[in-house]
């Protein structure tokens, strides 16, 4: 298991900031800082010049985030009718979106088309046939499976055709009169490095170029997916260095192609901080238990679904002892952190979770009908 980063104590100013937020808004909170998204977006854009960024809405489907990305001129990667509705409500123009879920109901295709999305991702023959009725309107990306062994979240087992299936799918699409405009892949989320991205770019580009020699309608879109990491170890993130091999690989593809990426985690993870409160304590078998007002059925759901280990911080300092942080539900799986060394906390103390923007609130449940952590933005809407 990945080691969790824990910070004991905080500068007075930082502690006052969190305490003030809880005094004003209550607890638990998810505190969103749009400035962080803007900074990450700019960093990623600098590291991948010429790549069009489509924010993966699934990472944090929040109107606040949509507005931040919208103001930056970014695009949006959508995967469901609910995400489509959210973008429609926020006045995002359909042409700035791509629909990337490889498996869709007909009703979803239709509602995405009505919304204005015309780019769709497909990874198998049956799914291709679903687009026959809409073939005059759409441009398809075929998704290929490339699996990064170092990714925390695998996205190439459930989705993506094998590379050697591509020629057959391309021929099939041509026979059905469906335009395939390019290839896409998603090598996995939270990748340790970009080696798999580079391999995927090189193989896809070679195939696209080879097919362009013979196919009447050349492919021109290369979608490199997501996978850019968050700094859960709090060691900082050198996006520039992480992306350098990707940049180099993309530098070798033809200039007239459109290269796009679907970053989710990297843009929003650092932009949200979770603030929880110790509600009760006990001592069992010599270990301190602290019961928080948010847990793995809530904002910390990513610890189960996304395999993330969020950096935690307590504001109080003092001699540490083995402790357990438990969530508020009645289920015993609802443990935020075990075996962590903490100073003695008191009810009312705050426990802060960092890097908690991606796949946190997005995957929380309704269990016990506990209220959701309130989402607040540090900037007025």
């Amino acid at each position, binding site marked *: 298991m990945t080691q969790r980063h824990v910070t004991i104590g905080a500068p007075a100013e930082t502690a006052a900031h969190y305490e003030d937020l809880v005094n004003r808004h209550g607890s638990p909170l998810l505190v969103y800082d749009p400035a962080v998204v803007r900074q990450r977006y700019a960093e990623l854009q600098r590291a991948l010049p010429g790549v069009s960024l489509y924010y993966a809405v699934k990472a944090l489907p929040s109107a606040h985030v949509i507005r931040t990305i919208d103001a930056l001129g970014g695009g949006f990667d959508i995967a469901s009718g609910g995400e489509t509705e959210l973008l*429609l409500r926020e006045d995002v123009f359909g042409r700035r979106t791509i629909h990337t879920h490889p498996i869709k109901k007909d009703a979803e295709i*239709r509602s995405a088309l*009505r*919304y204005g999305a015309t780019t769709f991702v497909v990874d198998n023959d049956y799914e291709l046939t679903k687009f026959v009725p809409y073939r005059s309107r759409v441009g398809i990306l075929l998704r290929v499976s490339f699996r990064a062994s170092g990714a925390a979240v695998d996205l190439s087992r459930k989705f993506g055709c094998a590379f050697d299936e591509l020629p057959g799918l391309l021929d099939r699409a041509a026979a059905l009169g469906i335009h395939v405009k390019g290839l896409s892949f998603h090598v996995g989320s939270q990748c340790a490095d970009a080696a798999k991205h580079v391999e995927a770019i090189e193989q896809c580009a070679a195939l696209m170029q080879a097919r362009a020699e013979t196919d009447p309608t050349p492919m021109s879109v290369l979608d490199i997916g997501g996978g850019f990491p968050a700094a859960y170890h709090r060691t900082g993130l050198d996006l520039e260095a992480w992306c350098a091999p990707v940049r180099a690989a993309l530098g070798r593809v033809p200039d007239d192609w459109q290269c796009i990426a679907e970053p989710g985690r990297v843009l929003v993870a650092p932009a949200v901080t979770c603030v929880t409160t110790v509600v009760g304590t006990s001592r069992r078998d010599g270990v301190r238990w602290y019961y928080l007002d948010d847990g793995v059925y809530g904002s910390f759901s990513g610890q189960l679904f996304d395999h993330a280990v969020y950096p935690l911080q307590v504001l109080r300092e003092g001699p540490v002892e083995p402790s357990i942080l438990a969530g508020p539900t009645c289920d015993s799986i609802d443990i935020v952190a075990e075996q962590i060394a903490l100073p003695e906390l008191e009810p009312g103390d705050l426990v802060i979770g960092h890097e908690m923007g991606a796949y946190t609130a997005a995957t929380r449940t309704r269990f016990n009908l506990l209220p959701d952590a309130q989402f607040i933005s540090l900037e007025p809407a």
Partner: protein
Amino acid sequence: MADFEETLYDAVAQKFRIDKLYFENKTDHQHLMIFHNAALGRVMTLDGIVQTTEADEFVYHEMMAHVPLVAHGAPQHVLIIGGGDGGMLREVAKHAVESITQVEIDAAVVEMAKTYLPNHSAGAYDDPRLQLVIDDGFAFVRDDTRHYDVIIVDSTDPIGPGEVLFSEDFYAHAKTRLAPGGVVVTQNGVPFFQPDEVTTTHRRLARHFADATFYCAPVPTYYGGFMTFGWATDATELRGLAPAIIRDRVERAELNTRYYNADMHGAAFALPQYVRAAMQGE
């Protein structure tokens, strides 16, 4: 101000400047806008697709109303399905018919059109011959018991809310609502970009009507050249009337049109080879 860019096709798109936004509605999973454009007047869009503009609606409404009404010769009862903007009603009302029944699914569309597209209906909603029914067009043709000489299906595109109005069941029900000698016309898209619509509609209409074909007119803001109108009737003679007969009827009707005339009436049934090919499903 912002631009409106159509989202009908992935690879090409037409773009309109929004000079003034009059109305926008994003409820019921749809996105409706009415805005002003210097070249086109008021423009109504639904779900990223141009529905009608003040500058060129005359081509569409005149051709969809006058071609079947003049071809019929003595229409008494007319049924309009859809057409909430009122443009079709305005053109139908130019004829000496006894009754006009219009079935619109959404009362709000009619009210909105009266307010923001007043030139489309131009007062026709006050016509005493009109019976306006707020109902689903499919349910209406299925359940109604009256008969009509001309049925005009002024629908949105088949991916939008008007989907059922392109179904074979709808055409079958519509046929049962036709009086002897009656004709159904339908909005059928731009075949240069959407040949499948011609193929599908032709196949469905041909199963129910002795004469199932299309006629054409270019509506500039329905980008892509000719649009097609479905033509379905058992009265096979209606399509090939002698030019003199058409001319005589048009003169007597005093229609005051900008696109439609006797020559255009006859010429509209001439189909480009690519449309004929699409009809055969090639």
